[in-house]
């Protein structure tokens, strides 16, 4: 009796293992800051991917696979941590990676991913160098910082008619890269004079000393190349100190938290962000699905959730169409409609997206100026 | 009736028998001296009484209440105060403040009450200040009240130690080598002071190496050697005791 029992047990165990072997799982890795100051944006990205997978499975799923698994890694906003996360995902045999948030995390971590021949899509990192390295399987969903910098310069020159500008960055890859772009494009026309270039430290709360110095210089524009946590606080202190310079900032502040924390002080601030997308069915479906999945209002969705959703959908549709092996080629050749508009990629893996200048009005972001056409919305 | 009573008290530190089955009583209103060579166990006896150590065996009672195992701060509130062989003043406090700290265990208000009830607090602080001044006057230290303790002359630091102990309003005062390091004039003043304290009704338990002081003021003397009581009696009896003389000469003579 005992022997039979063991025999049955063995069969059961073997059956279990072979069961795992035949069940196919598609693994998608995500890298975004889940701890630290940018955890909010990191969470927006992860949630966007999760909503995509859920929606995709609801509409039929992936033939040949019976499970889609998301492996979420914390890349903080740090190259070292992100590279470790990337290696971990590579070792877990993911078919594609979506990440990171900070350019400083995406730049180094995409190297081992490229070497492993795995497709990577960034839903948020905008530093232009990322796609200048000839990676064949790397794609970027949001517009690049040279586009962003150019748009900001056009806006300051033509719409604000600014003469003097003070720059503030926080010495990270993204913020410094953006400031460099602004200086570069401004040099071409020579219309802007940069009267100061200050640096803050991520995590600081008090910028009054720097801002008081800027108040004395009284530039036409203070350009804040910083992330949202510091951006909200700086906006408040600018109002507190009664500084009259116009505030212009960028896509890292373009999210609900910016106005939620900054409150009335963010009213009237200009931001560069991807040009507004005409409403389309994919977008409205996403908005509905996301706000239902995460229990947030339809206008409380993080801006990078949209890009993350599109990135995940590209992966899922690509695998569905031609399998994991040909994923990069499939994505490159595809022409699709996403929550962030029409999606096509050039050789470098970039989209042909334009920036617009937005303004905070009654706590919401409203399109304001189109730098391409030099017209108001 | 003796107020402080030690019965069969033993203290072992590992293998070392520091105090060995000691019986002792501090007579009421008298000065009892505990003498003995270095390392005899005198300070250990004080430490046992004041709750620094718990006796390995035996009982210590005060006014009939057992002290064994009580924390030092509880022993003080029962009425036993002490000074240390090496001076332990609060150097970054003034002379007055040192004495005030001693007085605090006799005042009523608890933490919360002190934090909340300001008028009461002010009243109480005023009383404390007055009492502290009275103690300083008794010890002849009033002129130094605002000096930092560390700035006092050596003899006065010793006096301040006594003042601080007196501030806890004890019934029994334990003095551990109060004359150590004093010059003859200071020692003579100290003798007078100790007698004056006794005359206010306190029992005094004194450990001292200075024989002139011990013989001059003690009512009774107990002699300790290697933790054991080897003699007991009036100064006169002790001076003529063979065993005592031997113990002392054997370990380096009079100090």
């Amino acid at each position, binding site marked *: 009796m005992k022997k039979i029992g063991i025999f049955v047990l063995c069969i059961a165990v073997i059956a279990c293992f072979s069961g795992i072997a035949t069940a196919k799982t598609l693994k998608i890795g995500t890298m975004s800051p889940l*701890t*630290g100051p940018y*955890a*909010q944006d990191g969470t927006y990205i992860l949630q966007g991917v999760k909503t995509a997978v859920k929606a995709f499975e609801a509409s039929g799923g992936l033939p040949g696979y019976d499970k889609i698994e998301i492996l979420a890694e914390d890349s903080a906003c740090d190259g070292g941590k992100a590279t470790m996360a990337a290696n971990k995902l590579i070792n877990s045999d993911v078919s594609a990676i979506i990440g990171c948030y900070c350019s400083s995390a995406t730049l180094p971590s995409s190297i081992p991913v490229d070497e492993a021949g795995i497709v990577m899509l960034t839903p948020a990192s905008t530093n232009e160098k990322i796609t200048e390295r000839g990676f064949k399987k790397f794609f970027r969903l949001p517009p690049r910082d040279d586009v962003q910098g150019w748009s900001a310069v056009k806006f300051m020159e033509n719409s604000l008619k600014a003469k003097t500008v003070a720059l503030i960055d926080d010495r990270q890859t993204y913020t410094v890269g953006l400031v460099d772009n602004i200086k570069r494009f401004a040099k071409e026309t020579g219309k802007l004079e940069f009267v100061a270039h*200050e*640096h803050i*430290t991520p*995590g*600081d709360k*008090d910028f*009054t*000393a*720097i801002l*008081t*110095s800027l*108040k*004395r210089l*009284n530039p036409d524009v203070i350009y804040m190349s910083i992330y*949202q*946590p510091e951006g*909200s*606080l700086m906006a*408040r*202190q600018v109002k*507190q100190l*009664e500084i009259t310079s116009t505030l212009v900032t960028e896509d890292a502040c373009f999210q609900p*938290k910016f106005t939620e*924390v900054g*409150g*009335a*002080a963010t009213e009237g601030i200009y931001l560069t962000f991807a040009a507004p997308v005409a409403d389309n069915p994919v977008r409205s479906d996403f908005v509905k699905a996301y706000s239902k999945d995460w229990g947030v209002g339809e206008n409380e969705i993080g801006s990078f959730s949209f890009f993350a959703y599109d990135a995940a959908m590209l992966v899922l549709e690509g695998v569905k169409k031609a399998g994991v092996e040909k994923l990069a080629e499939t994505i490159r050749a595809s022409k699709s409609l996403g929550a962030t508009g029409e999606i096509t990629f050039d050789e470098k893996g970039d989209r042909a997206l334009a920036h617009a200048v937005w303004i905070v009005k009654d706590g919401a972001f409203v399109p304001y100026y189109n730098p391409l056409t030099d017209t108001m919305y | 009736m003796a107020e402080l009573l030690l019965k069969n008290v033993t203290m072992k530190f590992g293998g070392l028998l520091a105090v060995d089955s000691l019986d002792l009583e501090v007579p009421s209103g008298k000065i009892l001296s505990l003498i003995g060579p270095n390392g005899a166990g005198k300070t250990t006896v004080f430490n046992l009484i004041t*709750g*620094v150590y718990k006796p390995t065996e035996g009982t210590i009672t005060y006014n009939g209440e057992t002290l064994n195992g009580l*924390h*030092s*701060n509880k022993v*003080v509130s029962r009425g036993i*105060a002490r000074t*240390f062989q090496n001076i*332990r003043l*609060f*150097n*970054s*406090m003034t002379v007055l*403040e040192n004495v*005030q*700290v*001693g007085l*605090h*265990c*006799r005042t009523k208000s608890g*933490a919360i009450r*002190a*934090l909340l009830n300001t008028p009461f607090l002010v009243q*109480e*602080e005023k009383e*404390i200040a007055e009492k502290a001044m009275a103690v300083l006057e008794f010890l002849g230290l009033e002129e130094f009240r605002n000096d930092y303790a*560390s700035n006092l002359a050596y003899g006065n630091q010793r006096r301040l130690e006594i003042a601080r102990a007196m*501030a*806890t309003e004890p019934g029994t005062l334990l003095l551990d080598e109060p004359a150590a390091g004093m010059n003859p004039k200071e020692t003579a003043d100290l003798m007078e002071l100790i007698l004056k304290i006794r005359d206010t009704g306190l029992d005094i338990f004194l450990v001292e190496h200075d024989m002139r002081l011990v013989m001059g003021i003690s009512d009774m003397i107990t002699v300790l050697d290697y933790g054991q009581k080897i003699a007991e009696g009036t100064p006169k009896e002790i001076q003529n005791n063979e065993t005592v003389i031997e113990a002392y000469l054997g370990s380096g003579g009079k100090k």
Partner: protein
Amino acid sequence: MDTSSFLIQQLINAIFLGSIFSLIALGYTMVYGIIQLINFAHGEMFTAGAFAGLIVLAGLQKVGFVDSHFIISMVLVFGLGMAYVAVLGVSIEQVAYKPLRNASRLAAILSALGMSIFLSNGMMLSQGVSDRGFPNALGWEGLKIMDAKISYGQVFIIILAFALMYGLWIFVTSTKLGKAMRATAQNKPMARMLGINVDKTIRVTFMIGPGLGAAAGIMVGMYYGSVRFDMGFIYMIKAFAAAILGGIGSIPGAMLGGMIIGFVEVGWSAFLPSEWKDVTTFVVMILVLYLKPSGLLGQSATEEKV
């Protein structure tokens, strides 16, 4: 903005920043003074205070109480926030430090680090990972001194910070408990021998130190407008530098150290490239320690503790 307005404005900025650093530094110094332990969890006390204040303030604002009874609201926000953290501080002392009082220094330090990580993660889980906006109870209005501006909120916070420090000073110099605290810090066995309940005194220290840290946390949340579970870190580092600079264990030292750090930070950003701002704090600290190893107002290591 003319030069004198500029200088006045920077002076305001420095005093404001300095008084917050001072309040936090006091918590370090008091705890160190009494049990010779760097309370690494102090930064989390600061953050916990900010969250507690936020919860009370948000609750009061929801029912419209803040607008009608501003003063009472502030008393409630600061009172409840500080009381909550005082209880937290005592609990930590009982759980994490008291059992190790006779153990090696290293054990106590590791326990403190562990507490810090534990509390930080606890707040992350309970309060979320991202910034939480603090209701703007203080408004934007203020006083103008020439072209310099100080908001009423800042005035309120500076006055409160100084009042707390003055209160602490009165407490330690002229109350029974305060003197017991100083006595305990200098010599525990002797303090016991004078009838002081040393355990109780340590508990009270663990109420006051973290309580002051909590007050600073609420001030930061209220003035800057946001709180996040990890916001204590940067303040902890700077306040720690302040405590060391002033002489760890010395209460006036912590107040002075905090002010100095505030002035150095603001002064550097005001007159020199902001590039090196963060380094300066530590350069100043190292320089002072090199010239006076026990800190500005600290006395030689073994003697003065509070």
